[in-house]
C-alpha cells in the first residue's frame, strides 16, 4: 500500500570524526523514533563500519534503515550512497578504502569510533576518513550504481564540499539520482536558486542527536527500498516526493 513515509537520508554516527560521540546506535534510533522518521540512512564519511550495529538497533525499533556512505570524491565533492544491503555498503567501503590516502589524527579531526549496538567501543578506525578519495565524481557515481545504490549529491547549497561549490554547477553528464539540500535552504528557495533537472531531497546531515530529522523528505511509496525511492525520484508507478 502506498503511504507517506518520512525519510532522513543523511545521518552520521560516532564513526565520523566530526560527529559527536553521543551518536551511538540506540541513541540515534531512539531519536529517529521521537522525530517520527520512518526511514533513515546512515552516511558516515568514507566508511560503513558502524552500519551493522545501526541496522541491529533499527531492526529492534522497527525503523527502516538504509546502509549508506558519504563519499568524498577527488574534487572534494560529497556524494551520498544509499543501498538496500549492508553487503553493498561494505563493498563500496572496500573500494573507497583502497583509494583513500592518509591516517587520522584524533587530536585534529576527532575520534572515529567503531561501536556495537550497545554503543560499546569495538575499536577506532585509523584511516583519514575526513580526507578525499582518489575517485572522481563520475567514478564515484558509477561505482555506487554498479552496486545497485542511489547516488545523491550532498548539501548542494553549502559552500564547501558540495557539487556546486567545487564544480560550479551540476555537470550534465553526471548520472546522479537526486540532489540534496541541507536544512539551510527551503525547498522553494532551492527550486528558485538551482532550477534543478534532478529531484531534490532534504535531509538533516545530523552530526548530533538533536539535529536528526531537522529536515526530512516525505516520500509517497510502499516501503523504504532503493527501488521504491528511485521510483519516487522518477515519479513512476504512482510513487513521488511530497514537498
Amino acid at each position: 500500500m502506498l503511504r507517506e513515509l518520512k525519510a532522513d537520508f543523511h545521518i552520521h554516527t560516532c564513526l565520523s570524526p566530526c560527529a559527536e560521540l553521543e551518536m551511538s546506535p540506540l541513541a540515534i534510533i531512539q531519536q529517529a523514533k521521537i522525530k517520527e522518521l520512518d526511514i533513515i540512512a546512515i552516511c558516515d564519511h568514507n566508511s560503513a563500519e558502524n552500519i551493522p550495529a545501526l541496522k541491529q538497533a533499527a531492526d529492534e525499533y522497527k525503523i527502516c534503515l538504509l546502509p549508506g556512505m558519504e563519499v568524498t570524491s577527488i574534487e572534494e565533492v560529497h556524494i551520498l550512497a544509499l543501498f538496500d544491503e549492508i553487503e553493498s555498503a561494505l563493498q563500496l567501503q572496500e573500494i573507497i578504502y583502497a583509494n583513500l590516502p592518509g591516517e587520522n589524527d584524533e587530536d585534529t579531526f576527532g575520534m572515529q569510533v567503531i561501536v556495537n549496538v550497545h554503543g560499546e567501543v569495538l575499536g577506532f578506525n585509523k584511516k583519514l576518513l575526513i580526507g578525499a578519495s582518489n575517485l572522481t565524481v563520475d567514478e564515484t557515481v558509477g561505482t555506487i550504481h554498479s552496486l545497485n545504490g542511489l547516488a545523491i549529491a550532498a548539501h548542494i547549497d553549502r559552500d564547501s564540499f558540495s557539487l556546486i561549490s567545487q564544480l560550479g554547477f551540476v555537470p550534465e553528464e553526471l548520472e546522479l539520482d537526486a540532489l540534496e539540500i541541507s536544512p539551510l535552504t527551503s525547498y522553494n528557495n532551492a527550486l528558485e536558486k538551482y532550477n534543478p533537472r534532478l529531484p531534490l531531497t532534504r535531509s538533516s546531515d545530523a552530526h548530533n542527536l538533536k539535529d536528526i530529522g531537522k529536515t526530512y523528505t516525505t516520500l509517497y511509496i510502499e516501503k523504504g527500498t532503493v527501488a521504491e525511492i528511485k521510483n519516487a525520484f522518477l515519479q513512476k508507478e504512482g510513487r513521488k516526493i511530497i514537498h
Partner: protein
Amino acid sequence: MKLKNIINELNIKALSGQDQLDAEVKGAYTSDLLSDVIANSKADDLWITMQKHQNIIAVAKLKDLAGIILVNDREPDQETIKKAKDESFPLLATKLSAFEISGKLYTLLKGK
C-alpha cells in the same frame, strides 16, 4: 601580455587551443573552487588550478578567461582535454605548484 609570451617565459605546456595563444592576458586568478572562480575571476584572466574536472572548461568559457593552467603536472580528465580541444580553448600545464606559478605570473604581469 600575450598568452604565447607567458607560455614561453614560464615554460608552460599548451595541451589545447594552440590557435588562441595570441590572446591578451590581463591578470590571473588562483582557486580550486569553481563557484569561487565564477564569482570572482575577471575576463582575460589566466586561471591557475589543480581542478581537472571537465566543468573547468565551461566555467572558463563562461567567464571569458584567457586560459587555464593546471598545476603540479596534473593530467586532465579525458573529457576535459576533449572539451578543451573541441572548444579550441587553451588548457595549459606546468610542473610548478599553484604557489610557484602564481608568484612567477604575478611578477611577469605586475612586477615591473
